């Protein structure tokens, strides 16, 4: 008996010491900055989404093909024939990190808060008639008019319709409590955010995919300097590193410990035009700008290698449901003489065309430099306003001080998430025909019909020069060779990440 007890005890000790079952698996992720809030409802920053998607969940989410699938909802909603009533069944048995059970009152209150404080929620608040708990596990959203992008908005992880316990809801949430597979264990600003597995997590349905909670811990480390992220990845300090400089590609590819992850394509650089005030309110001026831009040269200057960009005028790349080439014959004209003719027609008086940009993203600045040369060849007087990001973020909201500002966006799963199409945006592209197309686009519920309307919208954006898409660009991330099961995404998730020994 004594012998057996001793044996059992020694086996237990041996297991504890040697078995990988007991080894804590930690995934270290280098991100570009510190998330300043854990409430994704009030922020539209990608850095906030990347971290909080592990902690806080929404009713719906996107699958690998960017289709909306249920997450905290039990199923897709029942939508009334007029497209105005969404009845959403909720999953039962879901618990928050504080141990309380999620019910319809929590969901209704959270979505109501979203319509009140989130930018994307506020943008459609006037379309929402009511958000009510209509059963213990059912919530009904009633709209004033049919609005097809609603589900995409409810699924998106930035300015997210996050679901919180009703009790913690306030204008400002000090400590967000979610239902996600991980919860926040500790956080030291500018040093790390430590997430640990949430044991009470219940898996969503098959459509959303399993969130296996493979790592015991996920640590997000803000590393603002891109080169330091590269060194950290190559030295084995990080298992994953976000947004790396493209010059580092070859070095990472040659490394024994890490490999490059290319998000192809990641997004689109945009020359946003000021439709509210100044030169670009004149259609002929806008056409002159459109005709003058040497897109190939701009992309080459910005990204250096064809591995990292594609010259493509379609607002969504090939392979996406929204892909269409409508209107793209006006893309990449690169004809400065033609641009000069438009200027002549506009009666251009030589007042400066103000390009607002910063070097926060070096590719913005490089594209602006090349564009400025071509625009000057066409006869424009160009004024480059190169400022730091904080100044740009303020100045772009003041229509009196810029004509073009440079930005970029990842390809968003639903075109209606791109604010620049809307006349209420800071660019203020307010064209009657475009507004009519957009209204049809947001109210149409049939997916096939929506694709056709989107083609009309894209064609109109080219014809009326609502905005200027420059091309597609790829983003470079990097991961340790041992790391598996992290899908490339602008918002990479690590709940399935595993590390080979």
């Amino acid at each position, binding site marked *: 008996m004594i012998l057996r007890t001793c044996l059992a005890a020694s086996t237990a000790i041996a297991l504890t010491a040697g078995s990988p079952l007991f080894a804590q698996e930690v995934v270290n992720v280098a991100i570009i900055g510190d998330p300043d809030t854990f409430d994704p409802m009030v922020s539209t920053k990608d850095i906030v989404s990347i971290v909080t998607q592990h902690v806080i969940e929404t009713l719906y989410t996107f699958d690998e093909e960017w289709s909306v699938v249920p997450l905290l909802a039990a199923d897709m909603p029942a939508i009334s024939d007029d497209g105005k009533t969404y009845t959403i069944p909720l999953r039962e048995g879901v618990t928050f990190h504080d141990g309380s059970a999620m019910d319809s009152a929590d969901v209704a209150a959270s979505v109501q808060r979203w319509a009140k404080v989130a930018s994307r929620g506020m943008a459609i608040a006037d379309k929402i008639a009511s958000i009510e708990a209509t059963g213990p596990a059912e919530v009904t959203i009633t709209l004033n008019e049919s609005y097809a992008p609603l589900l995409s908005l409810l699924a998106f992880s930035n300015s997210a319709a996050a679901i919180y316990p009703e009790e913690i809801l306030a204008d400002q949430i000090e400590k967000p409590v979610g239902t996600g597979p991980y919860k926040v264990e500790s956080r030291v600003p*500018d040093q790390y955010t430590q997430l640990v597995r949430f044991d009470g997590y219940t898996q969503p349905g098959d459509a959303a995919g399993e969130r296996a909670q493979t790592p015991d811990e996920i640590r997000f480390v803000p590393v603002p300097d891109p080169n*330091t992220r590269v060194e950290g990845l190559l030295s084995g300090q990080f298992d994953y590193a976000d947004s790396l400089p493209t010059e580092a590609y070859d070095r990472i590819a040659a490394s024994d410990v890490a490999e490059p992850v290319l998000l192809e394509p990641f997004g689109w650089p945009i020359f946003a035009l000021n439709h509210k005030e100044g030169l670009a309110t004149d259609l002929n001026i806008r056409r002159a700008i459109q005709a003058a831009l040497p897109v190939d040269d701009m992309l080459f200057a910005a990204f250096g290698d064809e591995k990292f960009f594609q010259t493509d005028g379609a607002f969504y790349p090939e392979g996406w449901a929204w892909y269409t080439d409508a209107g793209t014959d006006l893309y990449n004209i690169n004809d400065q003489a033609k641009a000069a003719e438009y200027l002549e027609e506009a009666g251009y008086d030589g007042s400066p065309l103000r390009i607002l940009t910063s070097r926060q993203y070096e590719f913005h600045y490089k594209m602006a430099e090349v564009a400025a040369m071509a625009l000057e060849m066409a006869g424009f007087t160009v004024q480059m306003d190169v400022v*730091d990001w904080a*100044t740009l973020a303020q100045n772009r909201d003041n229509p009196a001080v810029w004509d073009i500002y440079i930005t970029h966006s990842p390809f968003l799963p639903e075109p209606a998430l791109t604010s620049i199409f809307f006349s209420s945006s800071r660019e203020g592209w307010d064209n009657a025909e475009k507004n009519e197309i957009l209204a049809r686009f947001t109210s149409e519920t049939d997916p096939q019909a929506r694709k056709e309307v989107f083609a009309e919208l894209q064609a109109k954006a080219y014809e009326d020069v609502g905005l200027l898409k420059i091309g597609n660009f790829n983003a470079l991330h990097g991961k340790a060779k041992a790391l598996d099961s992290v899908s490339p995404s602008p918002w990479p998730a690590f709940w399935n990440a595993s590390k080979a020994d």
Partner: protein
Amino acid sequence: MRSYLLRRLVGMIIVVFLVLTLAFILVRLAPGDPASLLLGPDATPEEVQSLRVRLGLDRPILVQYLTFLANALQGDLGRSLFFDRPVTEVLASRAEPTIFLALFSLLVALVIATPIGIWAAYRRGSVLDQTSITTAMLAASVPSFLTGLIFQRYLATDLGWFPASGYGGVGADFGTRMWHLVLPSITLGITNSALILRFTRASMLDILGEDYVRTARAKGMTERRVVLRHALKNAGIPIITVVGLTFALLISGAVVTERVFNLPGMGNLVVNAVLRRDYPVIQGTLIVVATLYVLVNLLTDLLYLAVDKRVKY
């Protein structure tokens, strides 16, 4: 002596007050709005405005200044807009890496610079003298970010001798944290050793030519005693001055080195605060740095008393 100290203290208060006021004005002269940065790219102007009101950024500048001044007098430097914590707390959490980095790199600089400086002066014109001066010029000319990048790439990433960046991460103990400072300290130490080396050499050269040194030798003292006891002690004042200034410079945040090695120190904090337009943190850091600067200067002056009996205040 007492009146000297009093004069210095009054001077210090005036300097800190001026810095405080200038800091307040300058950060607000720069364009850029903390509220729109906090909310992200797709925030609406209405949202930005309501956050401005909540943060008190909509109040008249004079009211903001007077509130800031009144609070600062009570040791309250305000609340960080980004961290939503008191500035004093934020600064305190950043002091450790900066102070130890300053101390270690000063140590590295002294270990490199003093022996070589003394030796170079003693063997003036020799190969060692020439080489040390050239190397010092070279070390001073290479910016610390380049030295840092080179060290990081070859010593940390390729050879794996040191951690590449950071400050140890979750729950790191004191030893681990200090281990993360080794490479940054060597980087900074090398850059800063050049100035100390040149000062030591120049100061020693002057002294070694003095009459009393010749007298000491004539009395039959060992060379070692002549150089280290008689000469070095008297060459001390300029060396102490430059060491004090270097330390003050290092403590105010080795911005570039902290950035390259991703250290959560004051230098990194102030750069991030500027980019985030976190006004209270920028002001707070400037006040603390200005205070440290004048304090270190005062301490350096007092140290003269201990080193050289001829100095009287």
